[in-house]
């Protein structure tokens, strides 16, 4: 066989364009650079036995660069065919090399080194060629180093090695057979490198499914069947692509929603912080205003009235007009004091800081009962002592707010309040016998906070202190709050 045997390589597309060869698949395979695809090892070994056996039988040389399993299987089959391969090996006509071992000798940085390949493999081919007998000595070579590279996921190196074999064929005479398991080309991304590999060979032998078909008619039917399968696969591929796209879109949406939810949580948290801050600021402001009114302006008014009283009783003011004017002034001073007192008490519970809940609650209830006409029963545990200022104030605000609701909304003529300390928590309950809160308003207050500024305010205040707030509408309304107050203030 001359160099030209495989130097006039046919490109694959052109090969495909040819009608399927009528001759038997094995007839024309001894020349050129042939690639054989296979599913089953025994099919490969049978074909290989024929390829190598024919060469050895004709006195030619054979080089086998294969995996240990294939080397062993081939040897068995050749012996079964009556060939004395041990003798051929001794004569240098049957050269067996381990594929992985040989590969490692010329692979550098994941690619076959051209010079090393030409030296190493070229030397093997030359020696085998020299050992061949007969008038036209030939060398049949089988190699699956390329298949190993492909299996390793290095298709570029496989193609490159195929090209190096073609280069070697320009200076050395041999007939080369490559083999790849077809199962290695199962992914759609393999399509392009598969075509590249085919294009490096003069002949492509399809897997046994096709090769073993004997008649033209069978092959045409098989082609039609393969076309149908390809069509179905294409459709499935498109479907899968669409599914993948949908999945990606869904995943993206899920991620976006998660992100949105996270942001929502964040903003809810910061809103809660803000509302807590606002409530505290509001309380502080009311406290300041209330005390300021009471402690400062109130004192001046009281002293003003003392002065006017003194003037009045001194008899220094003479005449009806002057006396009347003085009386008017006195009345005005009295009114101012009363109004100021109410204002300051509403702004900040009187005596809460000085005396605590035990005093401030009854004080407040007295005023409330008078203003509203609601009969309020107060049940304060005798064990109630001074609590941290925050706890006292929140408890008082909850009480104040609840009583306002009783007055404004419940229509209840009575209310019952109980305050006690239990297991380190202040328990507060305000109960009325009114009409309760209509469910729709209750719901709306939860969702929108329409009527619920008061309710939500209470609940938020309690929550800020780590307590619980519950609202029960059952034969009237019951507001309950539990405020932890383990860390008592120093006031007692």
């Amino acid at each position, binding site marked *: 066989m001359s160099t030209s045997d495989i130097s006039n390589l046919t490109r694959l597309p052109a090969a495909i364009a040819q009608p399927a060869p009528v001759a038997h698949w094995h007839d024309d395979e001894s020349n050129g650079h042939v690639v054989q695809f296979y599913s089953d090892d025994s099919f490969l070994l049978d074909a290989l036995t024929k390829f190598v056996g024919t060469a050895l039988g004709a006195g030619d040389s054979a080089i086998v660069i294969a995996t240990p399993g294939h080397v062993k299987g081939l040897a068995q089959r050749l012996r079964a065919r009556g060939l004395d391969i041990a003798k051929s090996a001794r004569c240098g006509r049957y050269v067996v090399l381990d594929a992985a071992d040989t590969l490692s000798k010329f692979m550098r940085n994941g690619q076959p080194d051209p010079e090393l390949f030409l030296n190493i493999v070229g030397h093997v081919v030359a020696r085998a060629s020299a050992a061949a007998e007969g008038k036209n000595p030939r060398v049949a070579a089988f190699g699956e180093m390329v298949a190993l590279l492909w299996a390793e996921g290095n298709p570029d190196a496989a193609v490159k090695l195929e090209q190096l074999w073609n280069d070697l064929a320009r200076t050395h005479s041999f007939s080369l057979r490559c083999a790849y398991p077809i199962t290695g080309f199962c992914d759609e991304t393999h399509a392009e490198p598969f075509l590249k590999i085919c294009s490096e060979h003069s002949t492509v032998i399809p897997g046994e499914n096709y090769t073993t078909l004997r008649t033209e008619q069978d092959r045409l039917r098989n082609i039609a069947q393969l076309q149908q399968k390809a069509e179905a696969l294409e459709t499935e591929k498109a479907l899968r692509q669409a599914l993948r796209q949908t999945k990606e879109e869904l995943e993206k949406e899920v991620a976006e929603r998660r992100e949105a939810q996270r942001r929502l949580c964040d903003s809810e948290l910061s809103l809660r912080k803000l509302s807590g801050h606002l409530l505290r600021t509001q309380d502080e402001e009311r406290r300041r205003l209330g005390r300021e009114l009471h402690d400062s302006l109130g004192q001046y008014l009281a002293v003003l009235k003392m002065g006017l009283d003194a003037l009045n009783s001194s008899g220094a003011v003479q005449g009806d007009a002057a006396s009347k004017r003085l009386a008017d002034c006195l009345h005005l001073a009295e009114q101012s004091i009363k109004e100021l007192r*109410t204002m300051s008490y509403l702004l900040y519970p009187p005596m809460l800081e000085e005396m605590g809940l035990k005093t401030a609650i009854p004080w407040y209830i007295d005023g409330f009962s008078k203003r509203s006409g609601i009969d309020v029963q107060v049940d304060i545990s005798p064990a109630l002592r001074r609590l941290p200022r925050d706890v006292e104030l929140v408890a008082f605000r909850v009480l104040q707010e609840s009583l306002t609701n009783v007055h404004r909304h419940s229509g209840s003529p009575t209310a019952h309040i109980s305050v006690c300390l239990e297991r380190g928590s202040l328990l507060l309950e305000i109960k009325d016998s009114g009409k309760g809160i209509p469910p729709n308003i209750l719901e709306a207050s939860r969702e929108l906070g329409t009527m619920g500024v008061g309710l939500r305010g209470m609940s938020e205040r309690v929550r800020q202190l780590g307590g619980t707030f519950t609202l029960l509408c059952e034969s009237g309304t019951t507001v309950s709050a539990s405020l932890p107050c383990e860390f008592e203030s120093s006031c007692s």
Partner: protein
Amino acid sequence: MSAKILIVDDHYVVRQGVRSILAERPEWEICGEAGTGEEAVDAAATLRPDVVILDITMPGISGLDAASRIVALGTGTRILIFTMHESQRMAADVREAGAHGLVQKSQAARDLIVAVERLLAGDTFFAVEPDVQPDNKKAVTAAPNSSLSSYASLCFA
């Protein structure tokens, strides 16, 4: 009847007002003044007044706390609570603190002299005072023109 009186209030003008009312009785000596509850207790211990006129809301301990501490001194000082606060409960709280009398600042001209006299005589003084006026009720039920309605709704919102 001569007597030593201690005036306790965190506002100078109030102390002055009390002084001017008590000036009606030259035989009463204003033995001292104090601006906080703590100062009041100290002054009561050193000056041993017959009567202390004592405000409730002051910086530091409240007047009621101060009253209890002064009683605990065992000096026999009579204590008159003098306050802006107004509640029916007030008298009970004042009694509980151990004080002997209660006068509202707004009624100082009317009650103060009488109250001191009563206390000096070993008696008590608790004037009955109607504390919540009809005006207040009007304010809380939110009459639109009431000057208080906005405050009431602010607090009840």
